[in-house]
């Protein structure tokens, strides 16, 4: 079967393909000579170890030994706090909200998304009224399937 026959009704400018291949060749010459990005010495060896540690090593819990004197002060401070503070559960939502309000530079949407560890995090679960238009758009970029998904779960 001659596949070229399929294209017989289409024409290209004279010597189009020769011109195209020459263009690519000259570009190849330029780029080949100028392979110009470098990395610090032994970067890949060091990076390999660092990445391996980052992904596989669990953080070690450190045991700090205090002198009895320091321990006594710490214990008395805790006791004093317990006596002064009425018993109540820590409202984590309120604490988190307070934290964000107090920040001069609020977290970026990406950081907000990173903070949420649950799988069922949804675009609609965020209150938008306080967010800038750009921020809402960023979140849409991250979660709306009609956009180019950035923070999709990476399924192949």
């Amino acid at each position: 079967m001659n596949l070229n026959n399929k294209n017989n009704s289409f024409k290209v400018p004279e010597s189009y393909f020769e011109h195209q291949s020459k263009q690519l060749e000259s570009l190849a010459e330029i780029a080949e000579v100028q392979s110009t990005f470098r990395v610090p010495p032994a970067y890949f060896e060091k990076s390999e170890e660092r990445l391996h540690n980052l992904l596989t090593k669990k953080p070690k819990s450190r045991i700090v030994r205090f002198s009895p004197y320091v321990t006594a002060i710490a214990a008395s401070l805790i006791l004093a706090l317990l006596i002064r503070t009425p018993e109540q559960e820590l409202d984590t939502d309120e604490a988190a909200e307070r934290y964000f309000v107090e920040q001069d530079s609020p977290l970026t949407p990406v950081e907000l998304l990173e903070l949420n560890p649950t799988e069922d995090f949804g675009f609609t679960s965020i209150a938008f009224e306080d967010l800038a238009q750009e921020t809402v758009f960023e979140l849409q970029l991250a979660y709306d399937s009609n956009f180019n998904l950035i923070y999709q779960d990476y399924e192949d």
Partner: protein
Amino acid sequence: MEEQTLLVHALQNPATQEAGFKTLIKEYQQPLYWHIRKIVFDHEDADDVLQNTYIKVFKNIKNFRGESKLFSWMYRIATNQALTFIKQKSRKLGLSLNEYNEKQVSQLEADVYFEGDAIALKLQLAVANLPEKQRLVFNLKYYEELKYEEISEILETSIGGLKASYHHAVKKIKNELEQ
């Protein structure tokens, strides 16, 4: 069993995961780094994005079902991480993406990890000024010499579309270099 399937099984099994990641880092660290570097230009930025890429791979390996090649899947993550990175950085600096890319290229001259003459800088500037898709296709096809089938898996674009993008990219770069 195919090598990739074995590696994926190792990565998804907690008992063999550590060894799996060692292999994954050894095999893919360099190609992923160079792919990222050509998007972000700066070495330190590329280093950060490479780390983020591996963290994403680590977090999402359970979702990998083997329907695409492992390396295509990792390249896709690296591409998204790199693009997100430069978009965030340009926004923080109050620059458009083009302005940001031009600034990055102009800084290459003083970059100790870049060795190139005026033509090399001109080439980088021409690549940086391409539309995002054309730039990615150009880098993957021209520098990394991937096949269109492989690029199609990474960028989730038809082969016809990729060929058109590459053709336009080469034409624009050529025009820029001739000026």
